[in-house]
């Protein structure tokens, strides 16, 4: 049996917390765990796990954003934090020891920027927003960022961008109910849409809010306002053996568990899918290994449901790096909670 234990509630934001990002190098080699959160209060907060075993706010970044900070993402080196805001800009903060310094501001989107993501090597950054576009920025020396492509294809605002964990593939999901996959076609920064996962391909029937990959990158989960999760798969071997793009296909739909919009989904290293939804609950799903997957395809079972995990909508759930199965959740109630998923022997 599994149990979910609340470790600590982090308070400080004065408006809804939209998004969370664990520093990827924290929790490894004895470094303390570190978490960034961003909020409707226009600020970003950095939280750190102290030797006393409590979580403390280490910094409040209240400049330069003038509206909601919707999303944040650490670079793979853990040194830079990118923040996307409804003020139309994306800011880059650098960890300078005791503090964080805004070293760059990326302008270009017509209005709200909704998501930001670094690729695996940290050489590219993607942003997306209400103007229906996805921008790709090249990271140049001296904290310079140059826009190398503006991707058009979505017909409504783009909710989230996420790079594939190993391949140079960019995924975007949208209010237009689709997920699009973008790749450089080999010419000079000529990024094109190589696949669209739409309702006609067993895709979602309403806004797709978020997506997450498994550790090996051959499976992806998407979550939606249509109250379902969908699991997608690709042939990783084919992807690695050739330069060609191996298309993604629908593997299964996880329906009947959520009552309201699913805003966030995150796949753990040990294959547990966590969701955060507008019904204030956190749920965990695992693949069902008992039935005949050759005939029926994979299916996923509810492992655990934590009702009233927060007092209001849950906007983000994120598994921590490091050894322990820690999960952070952020909600409209302005709080963040740190949870531990523990195995309880029967």
């Amino acid at each position, binding site marked *: 049996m599994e149990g979910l234990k609340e470790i600590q509630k982090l308070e400080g934001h004065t408006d809804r917390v939209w998004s969370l990002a664990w520093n990827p190098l924290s929790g490894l080699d004895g470094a303390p765990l570190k978490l960034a959160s961003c909020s409707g209060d226009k600020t970003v907060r950095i939280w750190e796990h102290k030797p006393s075993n409590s979580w403390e706010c280490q910094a409040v970044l209240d400049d330069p954003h003038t509206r909601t900070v919707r999303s944040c993402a650490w670079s793979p080196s853990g040194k830079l934090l990118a923040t996307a805001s409804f003020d139309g800009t994306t800011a880059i903060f650098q960890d300078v020891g005791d503090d964080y310094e805004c070293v760059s501001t990326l302008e270009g989107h017509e209005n709200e920027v909704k998501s930001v993501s670094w690729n695996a090597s940290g050489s590219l950054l993607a942003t997306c927003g209400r103007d229906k576009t996805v921008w790709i920025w090249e990271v140049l020396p001296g904290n310079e960022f140059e826009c190398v492509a503006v991707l058009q294809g979505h017909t409504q605002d783009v*909710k989230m961008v996420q790079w594939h964990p190993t391949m140079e593939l960019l995924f975007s999901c949208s*209010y237009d109910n689709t997920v699009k996959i973008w790749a450089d076609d080999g010419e000079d920064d000529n990024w094109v849409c190589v696949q669209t996962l739409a309702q006609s391909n067993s895709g979602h029937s*309403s806004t797709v809010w978020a997506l997450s990959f498994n550790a090996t990158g051959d499976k992806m989960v998407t979550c939606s306002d249509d109250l379902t999760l969908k699991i997608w798969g690709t042939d990783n071997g084919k992807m690695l053996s050739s330069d060609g793009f191996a298309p993604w296909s629908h593997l299964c739909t996880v329906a009947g568990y959520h009552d309201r919009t699913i805003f966030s989904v995150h796949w753990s290293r040990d294959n547990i899918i966590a969701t955060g939804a507008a019904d*204030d609950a956190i749920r965990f799903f695992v693949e069902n290994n008992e039935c005949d997957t050759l005939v029926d395809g994979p299916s996923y079972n509810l492992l655990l449901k934590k009702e009233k995990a927060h*007092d209001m909508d849950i906007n983000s759930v994120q598994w921590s790096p490091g050894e322990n199965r820690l999960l952070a959740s952020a909600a409209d109630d302005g709080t963040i909670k740190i949870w531990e998923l523990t195995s309880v022997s029967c």
Partner: protein
Amino acid sequence: MVNFVRDIRDPEHPYSLEQLSVLSEESITVDDKLGRILITFTPTIQHCSMATVIGLCLRVKLKQCFPPHYKVDIKVSPGSHADEESVNKQLNDKERVAAALENPNLRQLVDECLYSSEL
């Protein structure tokens, strides 16, 4: 229940939503046990461009009147708007609602509808 929202002014007319029959006694249902509110309104015309503004006004007002954990769903009544599905989707996308309320022009329009004493 409709008392909470009946005096909101229409964005385009010097009348309240109730006077224009945008709202009626049946418009709002509240489930206190589950903490859920459903409000259905009828725009004055099929192509009402202000439907989303009316929706914003209702949402802001209900947020002021009910405990913060209440879930609010807002819809136009079936068949009352030419773009019913897209209006309903937009009214209930909380990210779009949050962004709209940070837009100074929209915010001013909403505040005028909520606090106008010119009725």
